């Protein structure tokens, strides 16, 4: 049965691409790449069954297929709709899609608290990007937003239900990566929330991945909580030989000086992790000597994380010590003697959980 598979010819925003039958429009667009890829908040290529929840990936199908050229009556979710032969899809070329996406962003932000200045996800948040690219400047919502108390799911993961957009990614992660799923979505409609059975803690060896898959700041790393902003940290690729056979051990360390502030999995350009990592790598190996550092991670120039990270810098030769016979120039002031920030006795990355006022007492 060496029959060659028939490839479907699809046109997305006028760009032709040939994909296998059964591919979704979103994945066909990702094969082309660039600006025409619809944004996705809930679809996650590594998680089976994800997608279809957030509606940000809506596209217009202007021609159904070669056999049936009628356009689809409504905008379709591209992560859930498979391609047909001869299908023509309009994404950014259709004003209708852009208008609909603006509306979707507005709906996603309805109950979002907009506490980005406090949120640890700020700077790498997909909802921030989406709101910036597709959303309106201001909110028209005048009513009370959903309010929840923050919940500790286990001692390493913090759940802010107010920020959740109900994408179900974390539920799929727990379902597919770990042996027992202990959390899910309770309630329906506006009342639905991510929760565990009577706030049971989540302790699986892979449960930390829910932090990485969360597109917003609903699930955050408690060991990193409030310690620094992501754009002040330097991401480097690192790996270690993890004892866990299911863990790849390939991670990104977020450094400030020699301090490892947090460890995450490596994310691709769509913000999806390349391979999942175990909780030992994520939470317990917070020292550079545990890791083999490969080199600085390439950060997109348009990301705020790239600020202050100079690429290809040529440092000019300092001729002064040579002229002064190896003597260093006299320091007028050593900032580390005066500055209260970055005191060596307060090692923020070593503190369990967020720092509190007593950590700064001395």
């Amino acid at each position: 049965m060496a029959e060659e598979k028939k490839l479907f010819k699809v046109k997305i925003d006028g760009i032709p691409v040939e994909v296998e039958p059964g591919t979704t429009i979103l994945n066909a667009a990702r094969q082309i790449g660039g600006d025409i890829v619809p944004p996705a908040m809930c679809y996650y290529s590594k998680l089976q069954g994800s997608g279809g929840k957030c509606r940000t990936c809506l596209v217009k199908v202007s021609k159904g297929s070669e056999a049936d050229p009628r356009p689809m009556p409504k905008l379709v979710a591209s992560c859930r709709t498979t391609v047909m032969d001869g299908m023509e899809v309009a994404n950014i070329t259709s004003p209708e899609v852009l208008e609909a996406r603006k509306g979707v962003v507005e709906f996603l932000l309805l109950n979002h608290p907009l506490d980005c200045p406090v949120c640890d996800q700020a700077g790498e948040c997909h909802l921030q990007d989406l709101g910036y690219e597709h959303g309106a400047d201001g909110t028209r919502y005048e009513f009370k937003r959903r309010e929840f108390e923050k919940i500790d799911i286990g001692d390493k993961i913090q759940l802010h239900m107010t920020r959740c957009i109900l994408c179900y990614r974390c539920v799929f992660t727990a379902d597919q990566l770990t042996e027992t799923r202990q959390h899910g979505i309770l309630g329906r409609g506006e009342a639905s929330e991510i929760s565990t059975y009577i706030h049971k803690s989540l302790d699986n060896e892979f449960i930390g991945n829910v932090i990485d898959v969360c597109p917003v700041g609903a699930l955050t790393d408690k060991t990193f909580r409030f310690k620094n902003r992501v754009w002040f940290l330097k991401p480097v690729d690192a790996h270690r030989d993890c004892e866990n056979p299911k863990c790849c051990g390939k991670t990104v360390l977020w450094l400030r000086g020699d301090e490892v502030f947090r460890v995450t999995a490596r994310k691709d350009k769509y913000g999806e992790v390349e391979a999942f990592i175990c909780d030992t790598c994520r939470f317990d190996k917070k020292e550079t000597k545990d890791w083999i550092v490969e080199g600085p991670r390439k950060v997109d120039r348009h990301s705020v994380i790239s600020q202050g990270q100079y690429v290809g810098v040529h440092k000019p030769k300092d001729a002064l010590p040579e002229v002064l016979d190896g003597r260093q120039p006299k320091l007028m002031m050593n900032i580390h003697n005066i500055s209260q920030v970055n005191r060596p006795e307060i090692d923020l990355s070593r503190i369990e959980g967020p720092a509190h006022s007593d950590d700064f007492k001395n």
Partner: protein
Amino acid sequence: MQALTNRAKPVDRRPMTFTEKLYLPAIAKGMVITFKHIFQKKETISYPEQKRKFSPVFRGLHVLNRDAEGRENCTACGLCAVSCPAEAITMEGAERKPGEEHLYREEKYAARYEINMLRCIFCGFCEEACPKDAIYLTETFAPSNYNRESFIYGKEDLLIPMPGEKKKA
């Protein structure tokens, strides 16, 4: 080399004429210019007796603001530090503990906040970036000093006093 402006003139290297060699007309011309300035409006002022009027958008020393209930506005979001072109601002955030609600407005606050006034260029970007109305540039001129250490402004130097609380002498 192409001239940057069209004001460049080649230097006149011809030998001086007799009147030029006398120098007297040139001295007289110079004196006229000098004495003319005595009767013109002075551009300088006698500081500190006199002070120049500041522009309404003058940007001086920073303050960290509190809200109406005296709680600190700053949440250590880092936007001032990231917008600072001189990289003068550093901070360390901490989580508010139960019982500290009267001190800090939000669950996160700046435990340490520092502006290096030696680096600061008073561009006001921090004020513009601040989403919480926490940092403001006042109309106070940054004071001078003899040692560099005093230019590192910590939270105690920047934060406005609690309303009703007497400032320590």
